[in-house]
């Protein structure tokens, strides 16, 4: 039987071919639209304002607080203390400003979201309304305007762009700063002709031409734009001065969705950064990979720093409290974090109180989630038919009689039984404000997400307080405090099979002829030969709860010793208490066997940090800018846990709340543990800028850790970076192409100390429990052969980057190339086990990641209809360069009953999938006789005999795919028109593979009665279906076992996903009490286009590890959210 091609499949097939083209087309289309000039939508914002006899300053402050504009003005020049009155209702801002400022002889112009006020200058003053009228009536003739543009020092400014507003007509100034431009006497729409003078680093100016034929102007330095600062390790830096690879994502650009982890906010927003959700369960794991993975055997997780606190978690925080996230991608940017920075650093900065009137913001959404994709298993009728066919073809009797098949009707779809539509809701309330001496921000968050699998739920409560007080000009105290409580109810998720499998595994494979009702004795029914628990018994009979209380924060005191010299003392703490409970009740077979089994684990983790650092900034002779940082830190991590378990309970009713009611004789078990590790570090950094053109950054960090022996207590991580702002050079300015152009090159080292405690010490451990005298007796054993020479894994990275901005900043972005090499890999060197030890930790081996990161922002339409595009693109090549001579290759990986499916070997990506290539299906016995599989049967897969030795053995295994994406894309388009905002985000990965163990268990069922994936058996080989895609399914173990890791089970996991789309509408303000109001409708995980059969190509059953395998993944949620945002 061949499955008919359904319309959806057709669509998918078409999309598969064209998705790349689509992506590229979208980007290029956006360029072609990118020609129009800036609009004045800000000035059309409607405001209501009523003041009597108030200072201009106060009125402007109120406007700032209510409209999100900011005013830039010199209080002196504009005489801002002057009192005036204004009374407008629901009028455009522009009109209000005219009304307010004209009587005061103040003119204004808009620069980005800022409005610059200045006293009217008669020579260049706007033409009076009467003159405009006159002009309107005049004939359309071109006049020539000449003039000179100068900077504040009266020097001619070359390369200044001059454009006739509303047209594409324009020119640039020559080397002397002079220009000549022919302009129409009036503009096409009849309004006054205005010239826009713009130049990077300077405030643009608009000048109405009127009847002038010569216009000389002076451009003022745009200090704001030059000084857009980003947070870097231990400080901030002007964006223009950055020399390392730092990607900054602001709140407005965060990826929306039912987000539990701050990392989800970055999905698709930063090139070279792969965010994947290893489990879609509420509270499931999120993995971040910055520029691939460098460590073979240690962690590849990035270091998270929240408001200066390293080692923080991204889940115990409200995403709504976050102002911006910076990703330090290259080693030169990350090196200041030394031995924990090898996998990149994510800096999270939370919100602060803003200047102006106190603000109250409330935002909330309610979402309905459903399973985005189910596994298409055989339905009951198909199941019975397929099993009958297989039975007969294997020489047996049909398993089901025709009568049974008709009476059973629909049977049970077990996925229906465990999946549900689930609600998610999120509420965030924040208060912020500021006064002369202090500012505050307080955020309160509640997230409640029910899972789409019954019995799973996440609840999160979060309170944040950020408070900053400056008692004197020189002294500042900052407190950032976050407290969080998370409760998480989980389904049983496990990589074990058979009786120990979780409900998702069993729901896929359970017998569909069994009804989802309890039998006479009140028990869920099961098929005794299937070796699987009833899925509903697992949902209802396994109770797993996790509670985490976590409080963390920093308290910092800054003291300015001299102008430009500040010292900071920062104390940080992170206290986490958690408890997890698991009870397996007698509803389940397993629980019944043990009389119920319960265990409780509880632990406390603390982290303390004390940092003292000092910074000095000074500009010498106006051209040498120097910034120096030096500091020292002490850190301590403590961890303690206690666990208890019992079995044979008096009753299931008490769950884990009465462990002492268990059978004390047989099953009581207790455990506890404690460990600490400490760090002591010294750090320093120098930034030097010459003439705002030539940039140098050098940093160094020396880290010492308790985990290493005295031989290698400290390690030093240096970095160097150079930047050249080419756009400051006359020869680039003349070319008039670039508004901004910077070339940067950097080199740095960082480390990975992610090894366990005690690895350099010889100790004895509790190990080996003997059964003696009828009970268990604990023995003691030596723990290891210590290696006192153990040291850090070191990552060296070279990065070449180009930042650019063209067409008046309408197109901007950065392009980077990097090579990252991680050496001194921590390896378990296998020992001859005659020593009683299996291995010893050593440093050896090298892995290289190289690739290209591109980020592109285009403002395609900027008038009433606005369209912005953000495009991220990155390539990645991961290669194992060098392995120890004692390990030619490492076979690894284990999921379910499938093991050793991935390989680490020189020249290939780390943990590549390794197995047999299937090249077809045997059709005839003749074909078999001539093959390398003489015992095969027609319908069995043909494995490629790679070495042509006439037999299929482990030497015929080849690399079947890589766990790293070759390419990653993110494409974010946002449109806005009159209060409506539409945002659509696509994400995609390409060139990544995954082993799907559910496919393994479908092609090679563990026992005959298990259900299988429909596609595999509706298009299986039979003599009458010789063109089938899948093998016959007869005696599958004869072509399974170790052969099961093959190109049928390792499949392409590339995908393109419409990650999220949202449409929001800003409600026009009805009254003054509400400052802003908007509503939105959003959908997440709308569509995933992939060849992958499983629930989610992005899922990873090995959690956040590198070797990806899909197995019983918690299904991806498709969510429709309705939200509101209110500001008071």
């Amino acid at each position, binding site marked *: 039987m061949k499955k008919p091609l359904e319309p959806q499949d057709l669509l998918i097939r078409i999309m598969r071919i064209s998705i790349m083209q689509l992506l590229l087309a979208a980007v290029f289309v956006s360029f072609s639209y990118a020609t129009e000039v800036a609009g004045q939508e800000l000035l059309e914002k409607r405001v209501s304002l009523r003041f009597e006899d108030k200072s201009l300053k106060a009125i402007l402050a109120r406007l700032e607080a209510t409209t999100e504009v900011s005013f830039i003005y010199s209080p002196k020049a504009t005489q801002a203390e002057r009192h005036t009155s204004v009374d407008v209702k629901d009028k455009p801002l522009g009109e209000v400003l005219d009304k307010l400022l004209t009587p005061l002889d103040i003119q204004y112009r808009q620069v980005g979201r800022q409005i610059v006020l200045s006293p009217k200058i008669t020579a260049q003053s706007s033409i009076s309304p009467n003159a405009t009228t006159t002009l309107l009536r005049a004939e359309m003739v071109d006049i020539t305007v000449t003039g000179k543009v100068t900077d504040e020092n009266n020097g001619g400014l070359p390369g200044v762009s001059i454009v006739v507003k509303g047209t594409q007509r324009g020119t640039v100034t020559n080397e002397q700063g002079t220009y000549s431009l022919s302009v129409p006497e009036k503009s096409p729409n009849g309004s006054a002709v205005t010239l826009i003078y713009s130049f990077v680093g300077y405030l643009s100016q608009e000048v109405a031409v009127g009847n002038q034929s010569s216009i000389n102007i002076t451009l003022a330095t745009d200090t704001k734009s030059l000084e857009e600062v980003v947070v870097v390790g231990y400080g901030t830096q002007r964006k223009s001065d950055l020399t390392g690879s730092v990607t900054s994502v602001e709140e407005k650009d965060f990826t929306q969705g039912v987000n539990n982890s701050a990392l989800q906010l970055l999905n698709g927003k930063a090139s070279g950064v792969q965010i994947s959700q290893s489990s879609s369960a509420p509270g499931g794991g999120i993995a971040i990979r910055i520029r691939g993975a460098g460590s073979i055997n240690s962690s590849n997780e990035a270091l998270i720093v929240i408001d200066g606190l390293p080692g923080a978690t991204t889940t115990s925080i409200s995403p709504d409290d976050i102002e911006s996230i910076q990703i330090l991608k290259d080693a030169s940017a990350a090196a200041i974090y030394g031995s924990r920075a090898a996998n990149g650093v994510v800096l999270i900065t939370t919100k602060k109180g803003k200047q102006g009137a106190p603000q109250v913001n409330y935002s909330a959404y309610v979402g309905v989630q459903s399973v985005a994709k189910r596994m298409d298993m055989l339905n009951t009728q198909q199941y019975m038919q397929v099993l009958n066919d297989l039975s007969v073809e294997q020489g047996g009797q049909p398993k089901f009689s025709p009568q049974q098949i008709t009476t059973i009707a629909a049977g049970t779809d077990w996925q229906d039984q465990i999946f549900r539509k689930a609600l998610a809701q999120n509420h965030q309330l924040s208060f912020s404000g500021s006064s002369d001496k202090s500012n505050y921000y307080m955020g309160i968050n509640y997230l409640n997400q029910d899972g789409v699998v019954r019995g799973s739920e996440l609840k999160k409560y979060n309170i944040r307080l950020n408070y900053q007080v400056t008692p004197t000009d020189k002294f500042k105290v900052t407190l950032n405090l976050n407290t969080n409580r998370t409760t998480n109810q989980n389904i049983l998720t496990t990589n074990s099979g058979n009786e120990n499998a979780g409900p998702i595994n069993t729901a896929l494979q359970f017998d569909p002829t069994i009804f989802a009702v309890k039998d006479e004795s009140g028990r869920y029914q099961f098929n005794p030969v299937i070796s699987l628990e009833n899925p509903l018994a697992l949902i209802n009979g396994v109770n797993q709860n996790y509670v985490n209380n976590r409080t963390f924060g920093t308290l910092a005191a800054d003291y300015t010793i001299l102008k430009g010299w500040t010292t900071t003392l920062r104390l940080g703490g992170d206290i986490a208490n958690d408890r997890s409970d698991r009870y397996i009740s007698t509803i389940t077979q397993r629980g019944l066997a043990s009389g119920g089994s319960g265990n409780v684990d509880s632990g406390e983790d603390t982290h303390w940090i004390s940092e003292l650092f000092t910074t000095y900034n000074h500009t010498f002779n106006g051209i040498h800018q120097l910034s120096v940082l030096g500091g020292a830190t002490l850190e301590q991590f403590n961890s303690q846990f206690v666990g208890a378990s019992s079995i044979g309970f008096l009753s299931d009713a008490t769950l884990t709340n009465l462990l002492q009611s268990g059978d004390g004789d*047989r099953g009581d078990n207790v455990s506890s543990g404690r460990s600490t590790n400490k760090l002591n570090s010294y750090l320093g950094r120098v930034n030097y800028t010459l003439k705002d053109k030539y940039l140098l950054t050098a940093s160094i960090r020396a880290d010492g850790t308790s985990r290493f022996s005295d031989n290698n207590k400290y390690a030093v991580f240096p970095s160097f970076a150079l930047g050249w702002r080419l756009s400051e050079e006359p020869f680039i300015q003349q070319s008039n192409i670039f508004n901004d152009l910077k070339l940067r090159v950097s080199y740095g080292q960082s480390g990975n100390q992610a090894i366990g405690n005690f690895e350099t010490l010889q100790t004895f451990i509790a190990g080996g429990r003997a059964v003696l005298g009828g009970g268990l007796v604990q023995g003691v054993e030596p723990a290891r052969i210590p290696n006192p020479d153990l040291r850090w894994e070191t990552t060296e990275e070279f990065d070449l980057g180009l930042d650019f901005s063209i067409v008046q900043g309408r197109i901007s972005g950065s392009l980077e190339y990097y090579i990252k090499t991680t050496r001194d890999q921590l390896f378990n060197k296998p020992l001859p086990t005659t020593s009683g030890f299996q291995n010893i930790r050593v440093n050896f081996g090298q892995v290289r990641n190289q690739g290209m990161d591109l980020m592109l922002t285009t403002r395609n339409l900027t008038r009433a209809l606005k369209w912005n595009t953000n495009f991220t693109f990155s390539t990645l090549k991961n290669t194992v360069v060098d392995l120890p001579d004692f390990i030619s290759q490492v076979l690894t990986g284990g999921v379910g009953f499938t093991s050793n499916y991935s390989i680490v070997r020189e020249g290939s990506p780390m943990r590549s999938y390794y197995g047999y290539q299937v090249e077809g299906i045997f059709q005839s016995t003749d074909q078999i006789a001539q093959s390398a599989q003489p015992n095969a049967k027609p319908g069995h897969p043909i494995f490629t005999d790679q070495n042509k030795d006439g037999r299929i053995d482990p030497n015929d295994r080849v690399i079947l795919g890589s766990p790293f994406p070759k390419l990653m894309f993110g494409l974010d388009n946002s449109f806005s028109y009159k209060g409506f905002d539409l945002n659509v985000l696509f994400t995609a990965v390409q060139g990544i593979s995954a082993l799907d163990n559910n496919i393994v268990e479908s092609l090679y069922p563990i026992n005959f009665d298990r259900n299988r994936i429909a596609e595999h058996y509706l298009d299986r080989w039979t003599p009458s279906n010789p063109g089938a895609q899948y093998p016959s399914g007869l005696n599958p*173990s004869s072509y399974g076992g170790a052969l099961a890791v093959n190109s049928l089970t390792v499949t392409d996991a590339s995908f393109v996903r419409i990650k999220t789309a949202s449409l929001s509408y800003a409600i026009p303000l009805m009254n003054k009490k509400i400052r802003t109001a908007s509503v939105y409708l959003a959908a997440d995980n709308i569509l995933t286009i992939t060849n992958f059969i499983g629930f989610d190509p992005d899922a990873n059953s090995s959690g956040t590890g590198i070797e990806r395998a899909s197995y019983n993944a918690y299904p991806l949620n498709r969510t429709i959210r309705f939200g509101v945002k209110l500001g008071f």
Partner: protein
Amino acid sequence: MIMKNIQKLSLVVALMGSMLIPTGCQDYLTEEVYTQYAPQDFLQNEDGIKKVLIGAYSRLQVNGGMREDQFTLSEFPTDMTLESGGQFEKDALPFINFQWDASSGFLRSIWIQMYIAVRNANVLLENIDNVKSIPPARLAQYKAEAQFIRSEAFAHLYRYFGPVPLVLTTSTEDLQPTRPTNSEFINFVSTELAAAAKDLPLKQDLYGKADKGTSLAVLTKFYLNTKQWQKAADAAKEVMDLNKYKLFPEIENLFAVQNELNNEFIYVYPCLAQGPGNVYMPHAFPPNYPILSNWINYGAQFRTYTSFYKTFDPADRRLRMIITEYTDTKGVKQKLLENATGKPLDNARSFKYTPDPSAISQNNGNDIPVIRYADILLSRAEALNELQGPNQESITLINQVRTRAGVMPLELADFTTKEALRTHLLKERGWEFFSEGKRREDMIRMGTFISNAKARGKNAQPFQVLYPLPQAEIEANANLKQNEGY
């Protein structure tokens, strides 16, 4: 003004300095250990020595790993037992079909487990003399126990691999030992076992520890398997002369939990229902077999060849431990021996380990006998036959076992040649010890392991009487020579 700034400056410098003080020395970064023990403290007293000894015992006990050790490696390549179904099938098939290779995880895990036992015993032997407080008698006993553990671990590996490196130190200077010659190996192990037997008490404080009988029984079997017939016969006699052991009257109930403290078991791997347990029964229950709610029935099925079943005397009480039919949970009567046309199904089930009523899931509490008294009797009978040919003492010894099984005693006159009695002994041992992991060594000793496999249609090669050394071991140790043929 300047003065004020200098004051501030010095304040900062002082503050910075105070940060650095704790790091001036490396005390701050000294690693603190809370959950492990410093060797220099731990091994200084008798209690520490006792804990290390327990650690050594724990590795010698192959309870959790019985299906790999006692079945996959020791019965699946023989004429008794096969396996099908479950995920275990793919691991079992190479051993059923004589297609194993050096990469087998089962070979490696038993190798590692035994060498960890050796290491732990060596830790004790190297440190015990530093502890002056132990009275001489106990000192000798601890040493003897460690010697027993070490040499029994070697003997265990010898059955699979032939002579393996004799590692007698915990020094890590030379981690690449070589294999001794066969005679060096045999000499060392037998000397050690004999020495241990001398210092071991007749009865131990805790059931499961090695006593005099245990060491002598292991020695008997080691002599027997290395065909030192006279020594084997003598050692067996020594065990018998301890007057400690006798046959349990009802063979069919011998393996039940309630009878495990008996006088027949000499050396056991003890098991507990909460684990480590005897996991045999979940593999023996046939499909839909009515089991207690606290039991479990695995997909992996351990089956008995019909041909083996048919060699039994129908009156043999030992046959009662094999089931050939049952009524399943749906009320259907299932036959396991043959189908309606008389075709053998090879699907009878050995229920030797009477299911433990209080088993917890797969873990049954039935202790696993490694050597029991019946084996000592039959070992002496075999050794005497090899020395003298058929003789009355051998017949008498065999008849003790037969009588207990309720079958007719043998007559000396029935056996005219050594070979004839040897052939019978192999049968008798099969009837007596099925499901006890002895078949492979018995068939190898009696020379039928390969020929019988060939008769069953397997492509067995003579070199397969030894397993290959684990591949990872060969790769890690350049001095280690692989067994021939692999």
